[in-house]
């Protein structure tokens, strides 16, 4: 087992390195003069030169890349500025180390992800379960119809509609503001409510459909029939013999979806003006702040790849049949 985990972690490192290299290539080599891009809009020729110098952009690619990598572990000097480990780069437009920019915004993205995840899991799984048990009834048809609609609405359209209706017209919610939970829990909650709902709707509908089809499959299984023949109580049958088997694939999908969200929900954060990783990515792309873009890409890839490993390990924990094989 430990060999397996070590092997997977090795794979994680390899993929992250590949992502790193690829991103570096794209950003630092694709544009004709990266220093100009990195410097930003208000720039002087001297600054461009100093950036080129400090980042070593005239050096061979591998040397540049190596300096970037070693900087992650040992810290790096950008001219007179020292960026301590882990140094994921330095933004010459905001004059901050990228790492501090990321850590400042990560909590927002995590809050968005966790809140949405709770909502969509509850709504999706329960909705799907009810639909499956009441298959063919009015309840099922309406639920699935709504789910189809929810899956088809682009989240920015939903975000704009909700904002228009709830904030502008009905005025029941304020525009989201950057207030921390400790300072004002109510405003904090109101600020996050719409982003949570918008993000959750698409996933909830997806999970409802998925849960429904998985549970319907489970209800057709022989062991479900056995459970009924044993005279077990309805709740016990639902819990152990209908829902539990259906949830295994959903858990793994959820792991991947959640890991993806940790890297920032770009569109949702942008539309609602939340200062998370997603918005940071969007803003940096608009400003051509390459070091930040690179770091955000790397962070998002990190979550996804680690999430992949966690999910696979989780699967062996969840499905006894797989456990024995991998042991």
């Amino acid at each position, binding site marked *: 087992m430990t060999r397996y985990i070590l092997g997977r972690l090795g*794979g994680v490192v390899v*993929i*992250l390195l*590949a*992502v790193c290299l*690829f*991103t570096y290539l*794209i*950003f630092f080599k*694709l*544009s004709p003069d990266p220093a100009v*891009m990195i410097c930003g809009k208000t720039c002087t020729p001297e600054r461009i030169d100093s950036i080129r110098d400090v980042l070593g952009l005239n050096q061979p690619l591998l040397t540049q890349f190596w300096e970037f990598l070693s900087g992650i572990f040992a810290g790096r000097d950008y001219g007179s500025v020292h960026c301590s480990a882990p140094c994921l780069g330095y933004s010459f437009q905001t004059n901050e180390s990228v790492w501090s920019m990321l850590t400042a915004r990560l909590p927002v993205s995590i809050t968005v992800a966790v809140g949405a995840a709770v909502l969509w899991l509850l709504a999706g799984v329960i909705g799907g379960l009810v639909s499956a048990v009441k298959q063919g009834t009015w309840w099922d048809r309406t639920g699935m119809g709504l789910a*189809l*609609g929810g*899956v*088809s*609405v*682009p*989240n*920015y*359209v939903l975000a*704009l*509609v909700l904002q*228009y209706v709830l904030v*502008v017209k009905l005025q029941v919610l304020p525009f989201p503001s950057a207030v921390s939970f400790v300072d004002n829990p109510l405003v904090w909650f109101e600020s996050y409510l719409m982003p949570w709902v918008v993000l959750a709707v*698409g*996933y909830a509908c*997806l999970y409802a*459909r*998925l849960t429904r*089809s*998985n549970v319907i499959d489970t209800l057709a299984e022989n062991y479900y029939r056995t459970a009924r023949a044993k005279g077990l109580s309805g709740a016990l049958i639902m819990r152990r013999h209908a829902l539990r088997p259906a949830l295994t*694939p959903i858990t793994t*999908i959820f792991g*991947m*979806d959640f890991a*993806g969200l940790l*890297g*920032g*929900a*770009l*569109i949702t954060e*942008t539309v609602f003006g939340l200062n998370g990783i997603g918005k940071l*990515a*969007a803003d940096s*792309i*608009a400003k*051509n702040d390459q070091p930040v*873009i690179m770091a*955000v*890409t790397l962070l*998002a*890839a990190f979550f*996804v*790849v680690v999430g*992949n490993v966690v999910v696979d390990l989780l699967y062996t924990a969840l499905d006894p049949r797989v456990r024995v094989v991998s042991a």
Partner: protein
Amino acid sequence: MTTTPALIEVEEAVSPGPSAPATPPASGRRILTTITRDKGALACVVFLAIVVLMAVAAPLITKISGWGPYQFDSAAINSDLGGVPHGALGGISGSHWFGVEPQNGRDLFARIVYGARVSITISLSATLLTGVLGVVLGMLAGFYRGWVDQVISRLMDFLMAFPALIFMIAILSSLPSGNRPVLLVVVISAFGWPYLARVIRGQTMTLANREFVEAARACGAKDAQVVFREILPNLRGSIVVMTTLAIPGFIGTEAGLSFLGVGVAPPTASWGQMISSSVSWYSVDPMFFAIPGTFLFLTVLSLTVLGDKIRTLVDQGAAA
């Protein structure tokens, strides 16, 4: 975000269990008859036919409606009020069937029609490219195993690890505006094919171990024949289902990218870009938001409903 969840959902539905039989896929005729009998599906087909018609015959349609997508009609907007269209509902009139865009007075109907062209061509091309890449690479990996499989699987892992949206935006924004639609198709497909390939790979591996493949080989069939005559026909169901359900995802992705400003370059019309422009106007001219939004929603919805029905039919065909 838009592409991934739909494809993963389809993956889960389509991936065969250990006892999945390789039976003849549902025939095209059966799919057609079932769909024509279902009112909901029929409505979707009708709507999609309209959209496709818009896409294909855009120049002709706009000639009939009277305004092109790039023409400015300053008479239709009230420049004193900052560019708000004259008349109710965003300026709907006999001359401008869907009204006009605020500020520049462009005919909304024409822009919707040309936007349909963008959505349909990009999503269909992306689906085609993704389909080809996904099926070919998936089959290669599943059939030959060994180092071919290793290389392709690592490549898939690599691409799936990338935060696709961020990357797409970054690439698209750093490259010059040159052939945008082609670039969009390439970028979207580059991140889309691994999801199809993963399913195809799994199914190819299962199928390659089946007795009928062994039998074919025993009769002297070469690799290429085995692949095309024995394995590919049995993959038809999965391919149809996954590509059909990928189309609405790609439409959403293109619209999303255009919404963020990195899709097709203005002044080319795109529904996503129109929605983005409409944001600053939605309190005074909600129709500018509602019309492209509704078209986008209904198109994705119709495709998803149809894709669902096709998936049910394919599953039933396999289960029969």
